[in-house]
């Protein structure tokens, strides 16, 4: 009986830990600094699935972008492994979708590599994008 209770307790604890691990990377909303950098056109969505600095890079902006890209990369790696794809394939696919989801005025990278401001129409994307 005691062992059973103990086992149940251990189960509950591990479940709680798993929930915490799963919940940790998911963030409810964008950081205000990130949101401002996006809408201000200082950062943009790159074709490879990562965030890029559009104009001059200051240390604070560099840190913000690096921080997000490190977290994106970790997420891509995990999801790519689960989907039996390479990190690059998964990241590129996410890039296609992230570019499609940019709001008017936000920046994104066109297939040629140049930064573009998203207009009211569809974004210029790689022909392989879904």
């Amino acid at each position, binding site marked *: 009986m005691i062992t059973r209770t103990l086992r149940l307790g251990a189960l509950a604890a591990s479940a709680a830990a798993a929930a915490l691990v799963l919940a940790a*990377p*998911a*963030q*409810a*909303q*964008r*950081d205000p600094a990130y949101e401002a950098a996006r809408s201000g056109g200082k950062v943009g969505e790159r*074709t*490879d699935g990562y965030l890029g600095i559009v104009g001059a890079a200051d240390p604070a902006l560099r840190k913000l972008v690096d921080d*997000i890209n490190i*977290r*994106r990369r970790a*997420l*891509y790696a995990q*999801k790519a492994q689960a*989907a039996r*794809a390479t990190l*690059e*394939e*998964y990241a*590129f*696919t*996410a890039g*296609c*979708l*992230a570019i499609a*989801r940019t709001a008017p005025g936000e920046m994104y990278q066109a297939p040629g590599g140049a930064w573009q401001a998203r207009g009211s129409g569809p974004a210029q994307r*790689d*022909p*392989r*994008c*879904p």
Partner: protein
Amino acid sequence: MRSAKLTHKHAPRHKAGMRMRAAWVMVMSGAGALGGCITVNAPEEPIVIELNINIKQEVIYRLAADAGNTIEENPGIF
């Protein structure tokens, strides 16, 4: 030079014909190497290697729904 007679049936003549032919081929290839020099110029613009070129469209289509969910589930970093 490469007459049918020389390469025909008779073993010694046949050999001689082969030797002649080999010599002729060597002369011809030597002439080709001397006269047919090809000059290759390096392009002016830098060569851009497109690293994403190996990613296939079918793979992207297979991953699209999954990647869409990932983006929606992580609004803080997208």
